[in-house]
């Protein structure tokens, strides 16, 4: 046997097909070949099929007139608008549902998570039952319940539920007032922004002072006083008038104010309630993940209850809560596509549904829809990576 100068055995000769490096190249070459072949097969099929149907591939159809109306839109849209406008309307509606849903489900989720940890036996158990029931029922079923069984059977317009002449609920939707501001309101807005900047500067100054002298400054109360005080003062001094555009019964329907169709209400309520249970579980897990030793350590350092929560417990709990909660937000945004089942005009419903049926551009339209969700997802993971890098435990 050959022995080299260091006294090691020389590697035995193996067949070239047993060499891991060569094998790696072989396998990868094979995979590439397969992927390329499959891609080629799919593309040629698509080309043949499109040619047989007399269609071409391209995005020029986006400029064509869509010719159908959309029940709920945030931007001007009518029958003469183009498919690109359909895309925009759908995208905005998806974003609207996602943003409102995320806000409500976060609030509800934190309440649920804290309720499950409550020392009150009744509250903790009701929260547990609620979470178990809600998260084991398909979100689509929950949407159906809210839409068909609750909102659709609301009374007709004439017998609407009336909440203080401001909010109305009936089978056609949910109506509420919209504030109207006059020209002077801009000063109030400016004052609000200025006061927030001031509050941020105050916080920075207070922190520097704390580090230098060890003296504390009541930052929160002062900042609140500045923001509320300055904004209110400017609001009153400038003589701004705020009127409310109230919904009122006119003919067969309500006029004025904002109107949320039952589809929107059902989608927002259903998704918020469903995803709130998952966020609640994240919150509970996050709080429980902070070991009791941390509480004891904070107490032995002499931190007050407030400071203990703010400086020790919450930052550590947030590190556990935020990553899964972000992916929950993402899945809420993805689940907003369930609106297609109750005819809420969001992206999948009007663009992948109605527009696709009319224009027949399956590849382009489904591709664009998927690209939108892909962008959401990539954006979220990008932000998440930044956050994770910031809060990651720094170990020796």
């Amino acid at each position, binding site marked *: 046997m050959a022995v080299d100068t260091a006294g090691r055995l020389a590697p035995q000769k193996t067949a070239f097909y047993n060499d891991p490096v060569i094998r790696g190249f072989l396998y990868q070459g094979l*995979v590439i070949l397969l992927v390329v072949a499959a891609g080629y097969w799919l593309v040629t099929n698509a080309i043949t099929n499109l040619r047989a149907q007399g269609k071409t591939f391209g995005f020029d159809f986006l400029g064509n007139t869509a010719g159908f109306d959309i029940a709920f839109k945030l931007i001007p849209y009518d029958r003469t608008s183009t498919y690109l406008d359909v895309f925009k309307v759908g995208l905005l509606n998806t974003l609207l549902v996602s943003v409102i849903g995320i806000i409500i489900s976060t609030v509800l989720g934190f309440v649920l998570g804290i309720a499950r940890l409550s020392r009150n036996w009744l509250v903790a158990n009701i929260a547990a039952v609620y979470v178990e029931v809600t998260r084991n*029922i*398909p979100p689509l079923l929950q949407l159906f319940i809210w839409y068909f069984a609750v909102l659709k059977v609301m009374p007709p317009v004439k017998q609407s539920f009336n909440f203080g002449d401001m909010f109305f609920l009936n089978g056609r939707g949910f109506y509420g007032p919209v504030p109207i501001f006059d020209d002077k309101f801009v000063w109030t807005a400016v004052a609000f922004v200025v006061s927030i900047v001031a509050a941020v500067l105050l916080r920075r100054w207070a922190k520097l002072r704390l580090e230098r002298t060890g003296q504390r400054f009541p930052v929160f109360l002062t900042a609140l006083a500045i923001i509320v005080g300055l904004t209110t003062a400017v609001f009153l001094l400038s003589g701004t008038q705020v009127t409310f555009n109230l919904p009122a019964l006119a003919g067969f329907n309500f006029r004025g104010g904002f109107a949320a169709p039952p589809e929107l209400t059902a989608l927002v309520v259903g998704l918020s309630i469903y995803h709130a249970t998952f966020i609640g579980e994240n919150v509970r897990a996050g709080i429980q993940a902070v070991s009791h030793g941390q509480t004891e350590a904070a107490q032995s350092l002499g931190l007050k209850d407030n400071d203990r929560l703010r400086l020790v417990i919450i930052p550590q709990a947030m590190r556990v809560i935020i990553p899964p909660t972000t992916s929950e937000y993402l899945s809420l945004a993805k689940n907003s596509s369930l609106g297609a089942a109750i005819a809420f005009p969001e992206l999948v419903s009007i663009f992948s549904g109605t527009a696709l049926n009319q224009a027949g551009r*399956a590849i382009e339209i489904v591709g664009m829809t*998927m690209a939108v969700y892909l962008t959401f997802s990539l954006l979220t993971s990008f932000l998440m990576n930044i956050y994770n890098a910031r809060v990651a435990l720094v170990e020796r």
Partner: protein
Amino acid sequence: MTDTSYQYVRHTEAPKLPPPGRSTGIIHWLRSNLFSSVSNTILTIVTVIFLSWLLPLLYNFLIGRAVFTGTMDDCRVETFGACWVFITGRASFMFYGFYPMTEYWRPNTVFILGLLLVIPLLMPKAPFKLANLIAFFVVYPIIAVTLLIGGVFGLEHVPTEKWGGLMLTLVLSVVGVVGSFPIGILLALGRRSNMPIIKTICILTIELWRAVPLITVLFMASVMLPLFVPSGFTVDKVIRAMIGITIFYGAYMAETIRGGLQAMPRGQFEAASALGLNYWKSMIFIILPQALKYVIPGIVGTFISLVKDTSLVSIIGMFDLLNAINAAGSDAAWASPTKSFTGYAFAIGIFFVLCFSLSRYAKYMENRLNTGHKR
């Protein structure tokens, strides 16, 4: 020395403190769990008021004022009670969809056979695991497909368009579970591979499927897939949905399994190499059995989402349980004021039983596997 120099010595006995409150029994339990502070007491009272409104409502709807027997006419009254007659009357449609009535024994057999194979598979102590696994993952699908579709051995051919109701939901779930598992394992192994190209392809696949909602995948399967296969070659609609669900959940499964692979200590890989096992042998005999055990709760969690998400096929026009319940009530003969509530209550019951038992199982396995780490 006088007494005055011992002023700090007490001359009289200190007053007796009141005895501590009971630390056992109902009173103590109530005091510590429901009325420990003012805010807690208020919370308890509010909750009790809420429950005293909710529970009678639920009882009256489900049992108290519900109509259990009779005809649909008994349901057309102005009380808020469930119309169980609607469920019993339309049960066959909700369970089997349009499946021919004379052939109901076929889905029934498949269902019972499935139960017989799954239950020992889920019990950690049941013997013959390998035989059981092979029976469930290889033999059972063949039997099930033969029985459900028929067309051979003198069985009447039942096209998949006739499948529906709970049967379709269960078939989609089982196919999704059985199919997504191996895909997930392969993608997870690929993502952990040393070969850059295979790794990149697996990452792209996983992230792409995870980024889009299942509905778009189902839309893609129903409108886009026909464009990508040679004309004249048609794939059944139900099978297209199955493919969509399986690949979609395969990507999710891959991420769950990757968690288990990453949790494996390096020593296990090295030990497998030291024994001279090649890649596949070390994966199959050493790594995967341990890695999969770590993530059983996660796997079951993914399965729960899968079961819930099979309801989405109703959007592409299939009559799964949810859509069957919706459709069952659309006939005027079955109209009643509470029929949609009743139908949904029934659907809630079925999905809850399915998913909750799965999640309890995940919890049970988690506790079982945790024993090693407890201090």
